[in-house]
């Protein structure tokens, strides 16, 4: 266990102590104590910057289940460090924000911080794990802690619905991902991601490669809310705003991005990877930005915008895979896509975090998040307004904020695709920049919607629950820091170039780097009149036009069929699964023991018949059979008549007597076949059990004691006949094919010599195989005690009841 391991585990350890702190120090907001940890971790991770800057990495291994090759291996390279810094950095800001957002007296803060710390530790574990099994474990922990956080206000129905939905979808993806990991580790014979990446080219030729890729991508797409799995994210907005800001914009939803980036060295050689990741990402981006415009809830807009931005990053990662197919590093245009993905990842975390916090402030200070009720807050909440403007303009891709730069790089990568002659891109390439551009137009529209619908226009105090005013300074600190970062990264993007972006991008496409080489990351603010600049200008012009004309075309959304949305599909499939399994279970679980016996017997006939038929086990060989005497035949006739009487008798009493007759005839058979001990026992037992049957008969309720004749049922007769025939055939076949001689010669020889008895049956029962006898005695004892208990112990309500009274 190294320092790095303790850093991953520290949030979990802290989570253990949170309830204690919460109880003991009730006067101070628990968040202050929690805040220390992410700040410390952030500082600690900053110290790794010089290491990753040189494209080197640190690996620390702690044994977990070494016999299975499962180890807790922490691994830091550019990519994981970037994520670790995001998690701890934004984590600190979110904890600080939550101190002012959540009230110490009204909320269950102990729960909140336990879940949040659990999540933070799990997320650190995801990004720092090199072992896929460990990664999966932390991955599921993020799902679980996210579930707990979404349902933090568990008395609300919508919260529980959202939590369940996100749980089902992300856990579905998680399990698929586990399958993908296992397939991968089967192919590569290791659980370590780096060792898998080292044999990427061999893995590409494996027939299971496609399966592993699809499964891993399912995990990434469900977690990162890609189409069609994005539906859980808008419903997860029922969580407290700090949670939405932290989990559902900055960290957890980026776990899928991380996964795609982390596994790029393994999968990216495949053309399918390029197509699936690129196209799904781009479609998600366009679709979600289109849907974001019709939302009326601020958090709804932000949720769809998160989905859209994640799609953007995802598509960049997919397009970046094309860089592996370009020979020379110098004229490799697609490396821009990878750099843009990393850059936009950072940018999105900063501006989306600050936007969520700003929305939280608006919600906190006005009591609503509905843009139809809000308006004219500019003069009332100037700081929040400034924050929102910075965040939203950066999201829209306007200069001088950082979103502008990454959006430009995004356009540039998409335009470069026109020059690609791989993967049938010559026919489809034009779709990429067009869709990217359309998505960006809608992104622009919803971004300025946030500003203008909330802060300008008419102030409507009568619709608000509270009297709006500026938030306390503590609540503003975190978004101000994030907004400052937005501006700083916008103006001085090269602060990040070689410290964070280059190492992370190099970790995504390590195979194109020469040993010790570095990618050329130089983000320039002004790069001449390139097509991407005209695209951005087009976005702004068309976006403003469309926003102005919005009342004219907003009705378009009404024509979208409400019945066939993905949410409807999700609800309907849940309902159908519930109803369907209910119907199936009800159809065979009838509650009647005769149905179950029917299943058992039919199964018995079928399995036995099939096995014997398939193995050609039916035999008939009479050579070992003994001659049949006349008295045996007559006894059998007696037996058959008595048995038929049991079945056909009108009254139960007749059946009981006939059963006694059967028993006595069987004892006679024992006599004929020379088994005196059996005959003795059979006689006594038959007598006793007949007496017991009579006892039961006597206690039958008067009404049903003399019921009519049993109804004939063809199905029952068929099954009964089948069982009889099957067992008969089995007996004949078994008797016809004996492979070994019996061992009874040993007993005959040694009953007197070794055991000192003359009665061989008894010597076997108590000497040669006495253990069986011991436990048959036990069975009888248990039965006797059970009967005694059943009769004596009557714990019904209303005291002792006696049926005879």
């Amino acid at each position, binding site marked *: 266990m190294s320092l790095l391991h303790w850093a991953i585990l520290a949030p979990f350890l802290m989570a253990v102590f949170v309830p204690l702190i919460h109880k003991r120090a009730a006067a101070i907001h628990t968040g202050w104590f929690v805040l220390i940890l992410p700040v410390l971790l952030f500082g600690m991770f900053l110290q790794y910057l010089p290491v990753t800057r040189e494209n080197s990495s640190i690996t620390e291994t702690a044994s977990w289940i070494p016999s299975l090759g499962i180890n807790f291996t922490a691994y830091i390279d550019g990519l994981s460090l970037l994520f670790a810094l995001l998690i701890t950095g934004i984590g600190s800001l979110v904890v600080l924000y939550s101190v002012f957002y959540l009230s110490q007296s009204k909320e269950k803060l102990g729960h909140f911080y336990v879940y949040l710390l659990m999540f933070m530790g799990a997320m650190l574990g995801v990004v720092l794990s090199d072992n896929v099994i460990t990664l999966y474990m932390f991955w599921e922990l993020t799902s679980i802690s996210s579930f707990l956080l979404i349902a933090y206000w568990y008395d609300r129905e919508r919260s529980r619905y959202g939590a369940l939905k996100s749980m089902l979808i992300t856990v579905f993806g998680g399990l698929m991902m586990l399958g993908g990991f296992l397939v991968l580790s089967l192919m590569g014979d290791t659980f370590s991601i780096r060792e898998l990446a080292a044999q990427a080219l061999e893995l590409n030729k494996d027939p299971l490669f496609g399966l592993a890729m699809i499964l891993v991508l399912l995990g990434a797409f469900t977690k990162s809310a890609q189409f069609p799995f994005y539906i859980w994210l808008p419903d997860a907005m029922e969580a407290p705003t700090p949670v939405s800001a932290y989990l559902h914009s900055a960290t957890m939803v980026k776990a899928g991005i991380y996964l795609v980036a982390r596994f790029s060295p393994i999968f990216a050689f495949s053309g399918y990877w390029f197509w699936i990741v690129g196209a799904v990402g781009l479609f998600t981006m366009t679709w979600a930005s289109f849907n974001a415009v019709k939302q009326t809830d601020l958090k709804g807009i932000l949720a769809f915008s998160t989905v859209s931005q994640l799609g953007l990053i995802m598509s960049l990662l997919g397009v970046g895979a094309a860089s592996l197919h370009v020979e020379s590093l110098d004229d490799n245009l697609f490396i821009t896509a990878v750099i843009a993905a990393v850059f936009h990842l950072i940018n999105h975390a900063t501006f989306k975090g600050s936007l969520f916090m700003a929305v939280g402030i608006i919600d906190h200070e006005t009591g609503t998040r509905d843009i139809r009720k809000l308006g004219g807050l500019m003069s009332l909440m100037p700081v929040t307004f400034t924050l929102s403007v910075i965040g939203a303009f950066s999201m829209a891709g306007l200069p001088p904020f950082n979103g502008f730069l990454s959006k430009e790089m995004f356009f540039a990568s998409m335009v470069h695709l026109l020059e690609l002659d791989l993967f049938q891109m010559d026919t489809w390439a034009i779709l990429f920049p067009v869709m990217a551009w359309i998505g960006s137009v809608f992104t622009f529209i919803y971004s300025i919607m946030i500003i203008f619908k909330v802060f300008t226009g008419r102030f409507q105090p009568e619709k608000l629950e509270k009297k709006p005013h500026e938030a306390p300074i503590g609540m503003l600190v975190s978004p101000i820091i994030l907004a400052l970062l937005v501006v700083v990264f916008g103006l001085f993007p090269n602060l990040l170039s070689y410290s964070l972006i280059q190492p992370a991008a190099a970790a995504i496409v390590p195979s194109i780097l020469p040993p010790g080489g570095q990618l050329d990351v130089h983000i320039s603010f002004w790069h001449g009149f390139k097509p991407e600049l005209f695209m951005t200008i087009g976005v702004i012009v068309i976006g403003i036009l469309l926003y102005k004309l919005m009342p004219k075309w907003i009705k378009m959304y009404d024509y979208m069929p409400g019945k066939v949305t993905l949410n409807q599909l999700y609800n309907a499939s849940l309902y159908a699964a519930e109803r369907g399994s209910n119907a199936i279970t009800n159809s065979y679980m009838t509650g009647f023991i005769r149905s179950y016996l029917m299943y058992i017997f039919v199964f018995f006939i079928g399995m036995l018949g099939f096995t014997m038929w398939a193995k050609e086990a039916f035999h008939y060989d009479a050579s070992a059979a003994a001659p049949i005497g*006349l*008295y045996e035949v*007559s*006894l059998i*006739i*007696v037996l058959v*008549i*008595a048995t038929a*009487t049991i079945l056909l008798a009108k009254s139960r*009493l*007749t059946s009981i*007597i*006939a059963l*006694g*007759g059967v028993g*006595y005839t069987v*004892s*006679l058979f024992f*006599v*004929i076949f*020379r088994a*005196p001990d059996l*005959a*003795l026992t059979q*006689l*006594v037992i038959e*007598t006793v059990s*007949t*007496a017991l049957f*009579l*006892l039961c008969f*006597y206690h039958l309720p008067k009404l049903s004691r003399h019921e009519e004749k049993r109804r004939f049922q063809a199905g029952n007769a068929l099954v009964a006949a089948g069982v009889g025939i099957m067992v008969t055939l089995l007996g004949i076949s078994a008797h016809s094919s004996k492979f070994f001689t019996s061992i009874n010669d040993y007993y005959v020889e040694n009953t007197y010599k070794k055991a000192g008895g003359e009665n061989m049956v008894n010597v076997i029962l108590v000497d040669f195989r006495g253990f069986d006898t011991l436990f048959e005695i036990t069975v009888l004892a248990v039965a006797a005690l059970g009967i005694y208990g059943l009769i004596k112990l009557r714990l019904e309500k209303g005291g002792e009841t006696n049926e*005879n009274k």
Partner: protein
Amino acid sequence: MMEAVLQISLLLLAVSMIGLVYRLVKGPTVPDRVVALDAMGVNLVSITAVLSMLLDTHNYLDVILLIGILAFIGTVAFAKFLEKGEVIEYDRDQ
């Protein structure tokens, strides 16, 4: 000679057994059946005896005794059941 006699007697006993079974099945009343069962028990005693002669063994003498006892107990139990409706009477003192 002896064996043939024994075989014939077994056959006759078996035939009488079939007759008793006919009574057991046909009834018509429960006492008819109980008496048939009792007679079957006696018949069993004889069959067992003849069989043990035929098999030349005296291991079945216990069986003969036991059948005698059980047939008696069984018939008495049945008789009591038919008479009183139960075999072991409820102890009214408790």
